[in-house]
């Protein structure tokens, strides 16, 4: 496999991702087996590949929805302020809701989303995250389903980008530090 020159190394390969997504789908299907009004809310852009693979493997009836968020602070640092670009189409009040996110970093975005959604009084709210960087956490966030814990390096692929590049690599890889300004 030829790696793009900006990529330092592969952290999680395609097969490992597929296996882990399948494991998560089995657990989620078991946990929601008695519910028939689960709504998965994917956070754009990053989570759509993870969501596309997860949703196909679930064995419980569920709907899919999307939200788009933007940080007020452009670039890679987070101030915690999040702007809603597109809200869910579904009214989540009284529904079983699961947030599907690609990566948990400082926790600001997910913390904001969880508070926002809880205020709408869903029947339940859980969070499914493919990647977590525990070293970066600045606010506490509860995660119910986690794919992988990763070190504090800039990761790309499987939905994650650097300036909109490398998003669609089928694996998760570390970017060379000198690429990230």
């Amino acid at each position, binding site marked *: 496999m030829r790696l793009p020159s900006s990529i330092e190394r592969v952290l999680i390969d395609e097969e490992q991702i597929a296996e882990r997504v399948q494991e998560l789908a089995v657990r989620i299907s078991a946990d929601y087996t008695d519910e028939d009004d689960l709504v998965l809310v*994917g956070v754009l852009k990053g989570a*759509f590949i993870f969501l*596309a693979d997860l949703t*196909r493997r679930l064995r419980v009836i569920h709907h899919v929805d999307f939200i788009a968020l933007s940080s007020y602070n452009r670039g890679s640092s987070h101030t915690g302020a999040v702007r809603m670009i597109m809200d869910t189409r579904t009214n989540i009040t009284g529904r079983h809701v699961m947030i599907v996110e690609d990566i948990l970093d400082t926790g600001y975005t997910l913390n904001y989303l969880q508070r926002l959604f809880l205020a709408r009084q869903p029947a339940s709210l859980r969070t499914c995250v493919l990647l977590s960087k525990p070293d970066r956490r600045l606010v506490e966030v509860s995660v119910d389903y986690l794919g992988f814990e990763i070190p504090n390096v800039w990761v790309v692929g499987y939905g994650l980008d650097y300036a*909109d590049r490398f998003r*669609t690599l089928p694996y998760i890889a570390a970017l060379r530090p000198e690429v990230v300004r």
Partner: protein
Amino acid sequence: MRLRDDVDRILIPEDVLQARIAELAAEINVTYTDEDRLLLVCVLKGAFMFLADLMRHLEIRHEVDFMEISSYGTGTVSSGVVRILLDLAQNIEDRHVLIVEDIVDSGRTLDYITRNLHTRGPASLRVCTLLSKPSRREVEISTDFVGFEVPDEFVIGYGLDFAEEYRNLPFIGVLKSEVYTGS
């Protein structure tokens, strides 16, 4: 799974679907170069699964953006008047743009999106759709990459829904008529 009981028959099985998506990606790979910095524009919600699989086969440099639109009309007949719920994050002026759609039916929605994006001055604008129902076409529309032509039946699965259900089926199926007529 209960959902599958509502499926009258499988129109396109998973392996045929995936093989065709790889072919479409191969066509796209030879149509563009890395220097084109192709921008894929995914029309939500229906096309997200198609996009996720299509991209895995793309070898040329590309980026992704999303649009979500809503028809003002209700029911299953598209009025063609479209409201943009989520606009592109990127400015597409002088960009090579490929619209990724799940299905082209009457063509009205796609016609609207195409005209809208053309006004923004892209370097090129093409359309890739997984499914096309030519018998339903009401406006003439050019589609550059087409996965499958399908008959005029209620198709579901692989991103396509009926009342938000069935999107996650990994194949394209035909919905039993009693499900959507309610009889």
